């Protein structure tokens, strides 16, 4: 044999052996990943995910506020578990809880905690926190691009104690800012809404003594205020009215191109609404035993104080083992890989500590 030819063959052998070794290593790495998936960290790369052997249908309904995020997660979940169909119907928290109580849906989304009148038996369900989002105080005031408001001033504005923007209370919050004599037009939600509930709860907590309208999905706003349908309706009123102010969730406020006020938080800092500020607020929030938590007016220098939490309520035990596995699978995905999708749709992911607790809660589901 020609020496060159021999050298070539040897080289080829070495080459092929190297390739083989590489493939084996890669395979090892993959299986390593796989076993890891099964224990604690599901998801990851490749079509062969931990969710692939799940199949069936999940029905859910409830809060419209996190709908954009849930739809995003459901869409992404499809590529992980192609045999699972998840339907989330944004009916509003009240209807969601009602349907969950009647057994019409497998889980429900809600912005508010379960009350006795909601038709859900106490003890039969668990809260799983999912994401949170800041509620902005959006305003439209010609010539004013930076506005700071303390909770007391905010309360006075929304219960129409303050009628014009150059009121002494607004001036005190904004030293050095030239405020016009424009009348204030307050815009609020005309539909029952978790956003209203969280906003009024915040005022109730942060401006106790000043705020007199109470809190809830629907409150008795003064007659001279304006009501808009959904977040977009409120955003529109603010946009169309010079001197308008309203509470709008961050994504709609951004989409409408509104300006937001910086709100004075518990630590006395004026903070503009942002996802980072929201997550900071969640870190400062006190989490109860059942994982219900209240991020409103949370402590922390960089915490944005008006943050709306949202939950999914699941049954503690499902009659059907497959249902339980599906619910567990979907929520585990939502809390792991799903959290990365949150910022795309202007929601703030849970801080690590709360996420761990939520995952532990999901593990408790029986079936």
């Amino acid at each position, binding site marked *: 044999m020609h020496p060159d030819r021999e050298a070539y063959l040897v080289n080829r052998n070495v080459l092929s052996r190297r390739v083989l070794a590489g493939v084996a290593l890669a395979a090892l790495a993959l299986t390593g990943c796989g076993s890891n998936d099964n224990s604690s960290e599901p998801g990851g790369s490749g079509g062969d995910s931990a969710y692939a052997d799940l199949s069936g249908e999940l029905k859910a309904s409830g809060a419209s506020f996190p709908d954009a995020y849930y739809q995003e997660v459901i869409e992404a979940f499809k590529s992980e578990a192609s045999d699972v169909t998840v339907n989330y119907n944004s009916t509003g928290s009240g209807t969601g809880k009602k349907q969950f109580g009647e057994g019409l849906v497998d889980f429900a989304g809600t912005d508010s905690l379960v009350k006795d009148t909601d038709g859900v038996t106490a003890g039969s369900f668990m809260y799983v926190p999912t994401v949170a989002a800041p509620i902005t105080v959006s305003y439209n005031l010609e010539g004013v691009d930076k506005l700071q408001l303390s909770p007391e001033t905010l309360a006075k504005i929304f219960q129409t104690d303050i009628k014009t923007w150059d009121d002494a209370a607004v001036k005190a919050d904004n030293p050095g800012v030239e405020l016009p004599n424009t009348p204030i037009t307050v815009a609020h939600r005309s*539909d029952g809404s*978790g956003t209203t509930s969280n906003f009024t709860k915040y005022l109730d907590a942060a401006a106790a003594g000043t705020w007199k309208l109470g809190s809830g999905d629907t409150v008795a706003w003064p007659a001279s205020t304006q009501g808009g349908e959904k977040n977009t309706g409120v955003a529109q009123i603010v946009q169309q009215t010079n001197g308008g102010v309203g509470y709008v969730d961050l994504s709609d406020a951004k989409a409408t191109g509104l300006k937001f006020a910086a709100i004075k938080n518990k630590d006395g800092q004026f903070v503009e609404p942002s996802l980072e500020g929201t997550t900071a607020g969640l870190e400062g929030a006190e989490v109860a035993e059942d994982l219900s938590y209240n991020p409103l007016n949370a402590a922390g220098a960089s915490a944005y104080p008006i943050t709306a939490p949202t939950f999914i309520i699941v049954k503690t035990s499902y009659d059907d083992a497959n249902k339980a596995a599906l619910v567990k699978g979907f929520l585990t995905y939502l809390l792991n890989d799903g959290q990365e999708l949150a910022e795309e749709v202007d929601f703030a992911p849970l801080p690590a500590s709360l996420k761990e607790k939520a995952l532990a809660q999901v593990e408790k589901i029986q079936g």
Partner: protein
Amino acid sequence: MTLTNNPPAAKPTLTQRGSSALGDRVFSWWTLGTGLLVLAILGLILITTVREAWPAFDAMGLRFITERVWDPNPATGDAIFGALSFAYGTAVSSLIALLFAVPVSVGIALFLTELAPRRLRGPAVTVIDLLAAVPSVVFGLWGILVVAPALVPIYQWMHDVLGGIPLLGRLFGPVASGRNFMTAGLILAIMVTPIITSITREVFSTVPRADKDAALALGATRWEMIRGAVFPHSFGGVVGAVMLGLGRAMGETIAVALVIGGATNITANLFAPGNSMAAVIVQQFGESTGTFTAALIGLGVVLFAMTVLVNLLAQVVVRRAEARMKGSVA
């Protein structure tokens, strides 16, 4: 037409009892059945809604219709559910709608039946009927995005000019935005115009030719003929058309919800935001529970009662007016 050419043997005769005897019986049962079905459905709706609304009626008593405060989550004490503000909003927006829609509709109908050249009638009728086919949410969105902002300067001007008049000026108070009773009424007017127009047109076209010719032969001008022959003959039908329009206006939900402003408010100022019963139901039902849900269904009952009352009232008006008018004609 070819029947006349058939042999006479095939002709059914009235002396024989044919299969039509059975047909008559089936027909009478069928019509009786459907007639009763409507009543039964109406009755069942009333029973179930009243039953579902009972917790709210029970908690509020008569205050449910006399109270103007609607506060499902008060800072202290029990929830207060008063339908009065929303009943007021429903009434005011519907009345504004009729105020604008009735003259316009009757005008269009008269034009189409008495004045318009024959060639124009077909297309004109089609266009008006198309207006009735536009979904109400489209009217609502158009109202909120285009009409409401565009009307603000006009409202402002009306307030400046008419606001100073004693008493009457109170109707034209300060303008906060384009979402108010007036805008809701105007949008409703556009929505009910096709209904009133098409029915009044039908009614006007049933006026006997002879009546009209007689009036003209006596030397009446066209307007005198319309006043003397067309109106007395069709008064009942026109009121019926207006009532149908009013029913639509009172029950209209989503368009009103979008443009009326969403405030719990009773005020003479037509440029102030308010709310109507149907709009409140659609806005607040999703997040309601317990007594709150019952109260919203209660609003439905009140709306139902209001519609029935208005219709009964209209029947009385028609009966009296017809007796008077026909009497004068004869």
